[in-house]
C-alpha cells in the first residue's frame, strides 16, 4: 500500500491511527469468542481497556441498553474487577496482545486517581493511561471533566507520578470542551480524547417510565458524529497536544473526516458491536480513501483538509 499510516502518538510508534474506544471492545472476552484469530488479526493499533476503578464494581441494574435512531444509549455503570483484580487477572492476558496497551482509569478523588496511576503506571505492560474524568470528585462534588479548574488540578496532581503518557478523556456534556482541554494541557496532559457519550434517556413504551435500570445513560453511534466533529475541531484548534477523535465512526470516510478535522488518532466504539472486526475494516477503507485522493501521509490533510490547489470544487459549486 502506497499510503503511510504509521503514526507516532506521544512517543509510541503505532502501525496505523485506528484504536478502540474504552469500554467498547473487551479483548479478553473477544478472544474467548473468536480464538487466536483475534490476536493474529488484531483490529486496533493500540488497545484501550475498559475503565477500571480502585474497588470492584458490579455495574448498573438492567436494562442497560436502549437502541436509538442511528445509535444507542448505554448505562453500563463501569463494571470492573477493581485495580487489584485488573492487575492480577486481566493485565497478564492483555499483555499478550500484539499492540501497545492503554489503561483507562477513573477515581472519585485525587487520592484514588493517584493510586490508580501509580500502580498501573509502573507496570511495563502499560504504554499509556487514559483518565476518565466523567465522574464527580467526592471532595468538591463537581464532575471533574465539566470543570477546567478541577481538570487542571487533577493533572497537576498526577503529572509528577508517571513518565507515561496521560490522556484526558473529555466529556461532551459541557458548553466549552476546548476550555477543559486547555486546562488539561496546562496541567500536563500528553493528549486528550473525545467524545465520551452524550447524556441521554429513554422511555419504556409499555410503562411510560424510564427504560434504563439506572434511569439514564450515554448516547453513542453515528447519531453523535456531527457533535463529535464539532467538539474535535474546537479542541484541536485550542491545544497543541495530540487529540484522539471518536464518536460514531463507522467507516473509512468517517475516519478521514476526523483526521481532516484535526485528530491524531481515531477510535472506533459502537461500530465494534455491529462488526467485531470494524477496526480492521475502518483502517482498510481509510487507506483506500487516502489513495483515491492521492494523499500519501496523514500530515498532508490532518486538521486542514485538502490544499486549495488540490480542491475538487465539484461538490461546492459546479
Amino acid at each position: 500500500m502506497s499510503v503511510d499510516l504509521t503514526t507516532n502518538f506521544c512517543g509510541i510508534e503505532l502501525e496505523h491511527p485506528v484504536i478502540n474506544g474504552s469500554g467498547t471492545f473487551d479483548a479478553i472476552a473477544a478472544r474467548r469468542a473468536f480464538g487466536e484469530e483475534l490476536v493474529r488479526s488484531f483490529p486496533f493499533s493500540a488497545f484501550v481497556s475498559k475503565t477500571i476503578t480502585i474497588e470492584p464494581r458490579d455495574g448498573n441494574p438492567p436494562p442497560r441498553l436502549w437502541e436509538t435512531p442511528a445509535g444507542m444509549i448505554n448505562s453500563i455503570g463501569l463494571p470492573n474487577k477493581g485495580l487489584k483484580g485488573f492487575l492480577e487477572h486481566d493485565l497478564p492476558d492483555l499483555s499478550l496482545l500484539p499492540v501497545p496497551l492503554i489503561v483507562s482509569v477513573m477515581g472519585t478523588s485525587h487520592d484514588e486517581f493517584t493510586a490508580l496511576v501509580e500502580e498501573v503506571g509502573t507496570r511495563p505492560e502499560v504504554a499509556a493511561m487514559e483518565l476518565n474524568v466523567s465522574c464527580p470528585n467526592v471532595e468538591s462534588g463537581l464532575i471533574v471533566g465539566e470543570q477546567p479548574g478541577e481538570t487542571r488540578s487533577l493533572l497537576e496532581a498526577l503529572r509528577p507520578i508517571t513518565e507515561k503518557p496521560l490522556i484526558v478523556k473529555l466529556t461532551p456534556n459541557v458548553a466549552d470542551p476546548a476550555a477543559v482541554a486547555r486546562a488539561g494541557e496546562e496541567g500536563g496532559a500528553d493528549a486528550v480524547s473525545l467524545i465520551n457519550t452524550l447524556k441521554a434517556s429513554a422511555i419504556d413504551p409499555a410503562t411510560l417510565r424510564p427504560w434504563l435500570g439506572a434511569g439514564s445513560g450515554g448516547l453513542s453511534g453515528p447519531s453523535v458524529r456531527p457533535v463529535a466533529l464539532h467538539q474535535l475541531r474546537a479542541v484541536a484548534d485550542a491545544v497543541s497536544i495530540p487529540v484522539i477523535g471518536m464518536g460514531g465512526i463507522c467507516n473509512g470516510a468517517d475516519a478521514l473526516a476526523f483526521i481532516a478535522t484535526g485528530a491524531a488518532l481515531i477510535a472506533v466504539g459502537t461500530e465494534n458491536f455491529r462488526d467485531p472486526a470494524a477496526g480492521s475494516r475502518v483502517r482498510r477503507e481509510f487507506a483506500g480513501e487516502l489513495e483515491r485522493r492521492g494523499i500519501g501521509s496523514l500530515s498532508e490533510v490532518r486538521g486542514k483538509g485538502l490544499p486549495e490547489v488540490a480542491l475538487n470544487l465539484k461538490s461546492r459549486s459546479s
Partner: protein
Amino acid sequence: MSGNGSHRVLAPFGRRALEVADNHCSDGYRIFSLRDQDGPVPSAGQFYMLSAAAHWAQRDERPFLPRAFSVADAVEAEQGLRLDFLVDDVGPGTARLAGLEPGEQVWVNGPLGRPFSTPSDLAPGAPGAILVGGGIGVAPLAILRRQLADRGVPTRILLGFRDREHSGGLEDLFACCEVRLATEDGHAGHKGYVTDLLAVLLEGDEAGSAAVYSCGPPPMLEAVRAMCEASDVACELAMESPMACGFGACFGCAVPLAGGGYMRLCVEGPVVGGDQIETALVAGSGHG
C-alpha cells in the same frame, strides 16, 4: 470443527455476509435459513448476531444494532452448512428478518456463547434429557434434540404453545420423535401450560434420572427453574437479555447472579445453570 455439540464453538472473527437460502412460514413463526460456506458447526444453545445487509433500518431509523438468534438447526448440505433460525416478529428487526427473500444477504456474527451441556456433564449418571420449550423458545431445543439423538441420549420433549397461530415449525423441527404438547387454547395436546406436563414427569420416579433443558418466555423459564430446584433436578435454561454486541464487548446483557453481581449473558450464557440465577425474570428481556 466437530459437531459433538456440547462445547463452545468459536466464531470466525468479523461479521460475514451470508445468503438467505430459504424463508418460509410455519404455524405462526418464520423459519429462515442461511447458507454458511466457511463457518463452523455450532453447538446447541449457541446463537448468532444477525442483521440484514441492506435496508436494515425499518421504522424511526431502527434497527441500528444486530439482533440475537438461537440457531434452531445446522445441517451439512452441498453448498455448505445450512443454518436454520426461528423468527418471531415482535419489532422492526425481526420484521425485516422475517421478510427476507432467498438470495438476500445477512450480516452474521457467530456462533456465539455457551451451549447446553451434555446430560452426563450436567447431572452425572443422568441417562436421559427432558426438553421443555415454550413458543419461539423451541428453537434451540430443536438442534439440541438432534444433537442428543445423534449421541443416543433418551430424550423426552415437552412443548407449550399459546394457540394454533403460535405452534411454530413443530413438524419440521421435532419430526421423528415423541413430543408431548400443551396449548393454552387446548387446540392440541394438554390444555394449559407446558409446566403442567413437566410437573407430572418430575413427580414420576424417573425424575432424578434426567437433566432438564428449557427455553421459552421468562415466566415459563422461571417456573421450570423453580420446579427443578424444588425437586432437586439439574436444569439448564437458554435465556435472553437485550444485547448490543453478543461477544462480551458492551456489558449490556447483564443478568443477575444468584451470588450477587451480574453475568454477561452473551459470554457466560445464553445457556445458564438453574442454580446460577435467583430468577429467570430479567428486566428488559422478553418480547414486550
